[in-house]
């Protein structure tokens, strides 16, 4: 009954004209950045953060969330038509989607990508809605030891699931933690690692950090590589997949949705991993695995479903536990903090309109996206034709203004550029950005929970194993660490190369 009332509340919030407008802005911008190279949803959210200062918190969150799931739709368009993934989560769509386009089936590929995204996105929201309340009640039992243990598990999983070298992922996590130490310590008020530089007393800003690591470095790398835009000139017709296409795709969509949602909840999982996992699973259980990669619709439907339901799954740890599981959700997390909202179990009690309004707006957003991405596909194809020579200066310029306008401070611009250089070097040395961002966000929270837990227990470390939740989380973390050690830190991953070229 309670859930029913909340759903009604969410619908009321979602249908307010201003919220509908910002939902549309979010999904439109999301599709746009999904299509465009050089800037991803995290950097875009960072860019639009100052804009949200002037609107109501619920409208702001609705818009930013729209950018996230909207980018998942847009990302597949470039994968299918240009063979350049718009998003990390669309890398795998290139394999069969582009091949379908080469065979003259760009229409059904784009159509199925949009329909699979829609079905999975909507189903993901339904699951999210159903488990939100019971989950919130469960999370209310969390104290500092549980929070610490869950965050340790999150960090461990992120490193365990990382695409490239694990040792480098761990180094990045340490670097993120170190960056998180900079500034005044929350518990004691003592300055750490800011070398008396007052501009850094509040620590390194998340927005310049994300824009530098993901935005600036991406543009620099793209400029250097001078990627040729080879838009596959084909007439896009027959966007509605045939009955046979549907029959081939129905189970991949169902499996992709469930797997994607689960991997969205898992820290370090997220849309990219979900799409890879779905592709691997479909190939494994298929009767004709050899046909994957030759342009079959199952190779588009499964991963596209998975990456969309993973975005809905990611909202569970973010909204209900208060732990962002990837860089993009970290951006949303920080936007909520800026608007005076504390993500976590209490959010559902204190600000139910934020959570339920956002969830309900996602239904509407998915419908808008279907319209934006099917009948209006021509517009996005035209945008793909804008030369990089015009696009990159504009993206760079917007990053500069975005960083400046957060605090009206040149220092933020300089910090962003410094991280742009670091991000650029990270790409060269094959270090991934996600562990850094997550450690940067979770680090201070972990430290705080750790010290609070020890204070609670009088310095007794068994407190981290005292409750069932924290014990399970700690044992799982240890298990993952041990298994990583046994299997070796480094493994070859065939998917590593393309991931280096895409934005987060």
């Amino acid at each position, binding site marked *: 009954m309670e859930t029913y009332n909340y759903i009604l509340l969410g619908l009321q919030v979602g249908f307010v004209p201003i919220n509908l407008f910002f939902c549309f802005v979010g999904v439109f911008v999301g599709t746009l950045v999904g299509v465009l190279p050089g800037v991803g949803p995290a950097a875009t959210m960072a860019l639009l953060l100052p804009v949200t200062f002037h609107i109501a918190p619920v409208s702001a969150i609705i818009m930013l969330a729209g950018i996230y799931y909207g980018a998942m739709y847009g990302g597949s368009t470039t994968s299918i038509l240009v063979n350049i993934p718009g998003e990390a989560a669309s890398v795998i769509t290139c394999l069969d989607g582009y091949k379908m386009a080469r065979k003259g089936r760009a229409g059904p590929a784009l159509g199925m990508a949009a329909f699979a995204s829609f079905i999975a996105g909507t189903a993901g929201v339904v699951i999210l809605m159903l488990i939100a309340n019971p989950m919130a009640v469960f999370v209310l039992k969390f104290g500092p030891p549980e929070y610490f243990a869950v965050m340790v598990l999150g960090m461990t999983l992120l490193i365990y699931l990382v695409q490239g070298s694990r040792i480098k992922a761990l180094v990045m996590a340490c670097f993120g933690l170190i960056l998180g130490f900079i500034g005044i*310590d929350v518990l004691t008020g003592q300055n750490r690692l800011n070398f008396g530089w007052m501009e850094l007393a509040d620590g390194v800003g998340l927005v310049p950090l994300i824009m530098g690591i993901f935005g600036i470095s991406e543009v620099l790398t793209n400029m250097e590589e001078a990627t040729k835009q080879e838009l596959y000139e084909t007439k896009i017709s027959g966007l509605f997949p045939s009955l046979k296409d549907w029959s081939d795709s129905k189970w991949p969509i169902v499996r992709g949705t469930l797997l994607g949602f689960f991997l969205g909840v898992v820290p370090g999982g997220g849309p990219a991993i979900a799409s890879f996992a779905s592709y691997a699973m479909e190939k494994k259980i298929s009767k004709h695995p050899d046909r994957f990669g030759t342009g079959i619709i199952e190779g588009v439907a499964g991963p596209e479903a998975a990456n969309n339901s993973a975005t809905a799954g990611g909202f569970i740890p973010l909204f209900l536990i208060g732990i962002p599981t990837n860089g993009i959700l970290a951006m949303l997390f920080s936007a909520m903090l800026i608007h005076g909202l504390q993500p976590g179990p209490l959010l559902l009690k204190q600000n139910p309109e934020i959570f339920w309004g956002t969830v309900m707006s996602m239904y509407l957003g998915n419908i808008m996206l279907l319209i934006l991405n099917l009948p209006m596909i021509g517009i996005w194809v035209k945008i793909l034709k804008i030369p990089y020579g015009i696009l990159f200066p504009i993206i760079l310029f917007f990053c500069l203004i975005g960083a400046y306008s957060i605090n009206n401070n040149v220092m933020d611009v300089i910090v962003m550029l410094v991280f742009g250089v670091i991000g650029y070097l990270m790409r060269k040395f094959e270090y991934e950005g996600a562990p850094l961002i997550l450690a940067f966000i979770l680090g201070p929270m972990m430290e705080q929970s750790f*010290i609070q837990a020890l204070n609670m227990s009088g310095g007794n470390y068994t407190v981290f194993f005292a409750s069932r939740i924290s014990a399970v989380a700690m044992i799982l973390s240890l298990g993952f660490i041990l298994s990583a050690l046994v299997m070796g830190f480094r493994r070859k991953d065939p998917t590593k190369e393309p991931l280096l070229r895409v934005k987060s």
Partner: protein
Amino acid sequence: MKKYDLYGGVLWLVIAVFVSAMGVRFGLGTLKYPGVGFFPFLVGLILFFLSLGIILVALKEKRGQKANYAEWPFFRRKVFIILAILFAYSFSLEYLGYILGSFFLMIYLFKVVGAQKWLFSIVTSAIMVAITYYFFGVLLQAQFPKGLLNIG
């Protein structure tokens, strides 16, 4: 791992030692009641061992093995110049002001980086600066530096 990872490993080693030392300076506290420096020290220590791992693996690589970084050397001249211009823009923003500084920056980016024609670069830059000034400066009330033109 590639041979250039050796340099990366050494850099991380230096950072690890530095952060651990700072941790000691901040005060480690006790195991029961950790001080402000406890976490930095611990993270520095972990980073120390990780960087040792990276260095050892890099050293174990067969000599002469070619690093196959796609785009080496890592700072191409073009990227280096763009970065220098972007930093110069940031440092001179207070003096030049938003309108003038951004106008010159955009012309440079369009003309040199984007290889567009002069007329296109100048006109588009003017339009971009005007739109962003109106949107961010007027509508969102961002306080841009006034600079030489005294408009902000």
